[in-house]
């Protein structure tokens, strides 16, 4: 996928971007991790219904247990990014230390969004199809192929503040490029905590109703 995307976009968008393969790959794996995990966890509440109705295992444990496999795949893919970072001479040990909170925050963000989607899925099945459309839109409004400075100032604000994936993509990618974007970094940590708290709060309030409605 990286090769195809690189072949298509490098001439148009990647001309002025240093280490474009690393730029592309880091964005692609982050957005993929988000989309795949939210889809996987969204249906898990419904699919694990027999377990929820017939055992006393805590429901959030059942949902959280769906996170480690996609996370593991994401971390493996991230190793390729680190290898590219080494190849371009951008790697530093500090980047690993600064990257860990971002990965934790990104996982928390994904879990929070997934909890919200899993609840919604119990109330309306077509949420799955709606989310498929929304996630495609998110893919294109994330700065994966292009840089924020290449788009209009209105679009830039929309992509940065309207799409919660953007600060995560920027902050982790900047670290892989050997740079540090403090604003995006702080914004990412805030978003991770905020979405996890929101998702868990909604889950605690609605889990009983969702189990009966699913």
């Amino acid at each position, binding site marked *: 996928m990286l090769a195809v995307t690189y072949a298509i976009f490098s001439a148009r968008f990647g001309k002025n971007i240093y280490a474009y393969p690393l730029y592309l790959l880091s964005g692609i794996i982050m957005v993929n991790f988000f989309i795949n995990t939210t889809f996987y966890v969204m249906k898990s509440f419904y699919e694990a219904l027999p377990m929820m109705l017939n*055992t006393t295992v805590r429901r959030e444990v059942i949902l959280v247990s769906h996170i480690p496999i996609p996370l593991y795949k994401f971390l493996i893919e991230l190793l390729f990014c680190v290898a590219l970072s080494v190849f371009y001479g951008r790697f530093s040990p500090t980047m690993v230390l600064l990257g860990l909170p971002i990965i934790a925050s990104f996982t928390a963000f994904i879990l929070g969004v997934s909890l919200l989607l899993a609840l*919604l899925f119990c109330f309306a099945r077509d949420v799955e199809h709606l989310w498929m459309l929304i996630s495609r839109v998110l893919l294109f409004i994330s700065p994966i192929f292009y840089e924020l400075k290449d788009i209009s100032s209105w679009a830039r604000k929309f992509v940065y503040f309207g799409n919660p994936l953007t600060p995560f993509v920027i902050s982790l990618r900047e670290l892989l490029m050997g740079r540090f974007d403090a604003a995006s970094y702080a914004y990412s940590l805030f978003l991770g905590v905020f979405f996890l708290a929101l998702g868990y709060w909604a889950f605690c309030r609605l889990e*009983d109703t969702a189990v009966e409605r699913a």
Partner: protein
Amino acid sequence: MNENAIIAENVSKHFFILRHRETAFRVIKALLHKEPLMKKLRVLHNISVTIKQGERVAVVGNNGAGKTTLLRLMAGIYKPTTGLIRTGSEPKVLLNFWTGFNNDLSVIDNVYLRGAIVGGERKALTHDMKVILEMAGLATFMYSPLKRLSMGQIQRLSLSVFLNTPGDFLILDECLAFVDKGFIIKSDAAIREKITGGKTIIMASHDGEFLARHCPRAIWLDEGRIRMDGDCRRVICEYERSVAGQAAK
């Protein structure tokens, strides 16, 4: 509360069943137009019951009488719509026998999986593995994939794991639906040994004989209400007479 395992006071449970197919657009339309998307279904009506610690209670009733819903309420899986349920300790439940099993894994791996769900620790399960498999009559199948077993064998395994993991408050629903009479007779003593000794047991079944052998008290549920509560043999006798009377009509 110390002496009581469960106190249920005027417990009612309603469910909402769909009037239409549920989609996001219908949900939004229903919210905007204030049209009810669901209709109410009353499953349990004003149930009041107290079960003391160490008591063994059978729950009988026709299909749809509310037995499983009552057991789920007692287990804390459902919350009552109205009324209050207080439990002394967290129960260990066996409400269906296939939950937590994986068809592609071996019998021995499934013992660990199922054991984890009912609160067993890996070390203790490894220690008790021989006893669990022997009680289920599956000692020779330990490395076979679960999909090679019959429904009855899987239920025997599920029951064996359940009875051989720690717990003083047990809730069981139709735990013998698929097992043969031979297994029931053979394991009767083992079951008696496991479920006695101060344990609180609540079990629902359509096997009146089995219930009468193990439980001194029974509750008969009829259309979501308690119709009779008392001596197990007497309640089951009345229940079976009522079922025979309905069948004769």
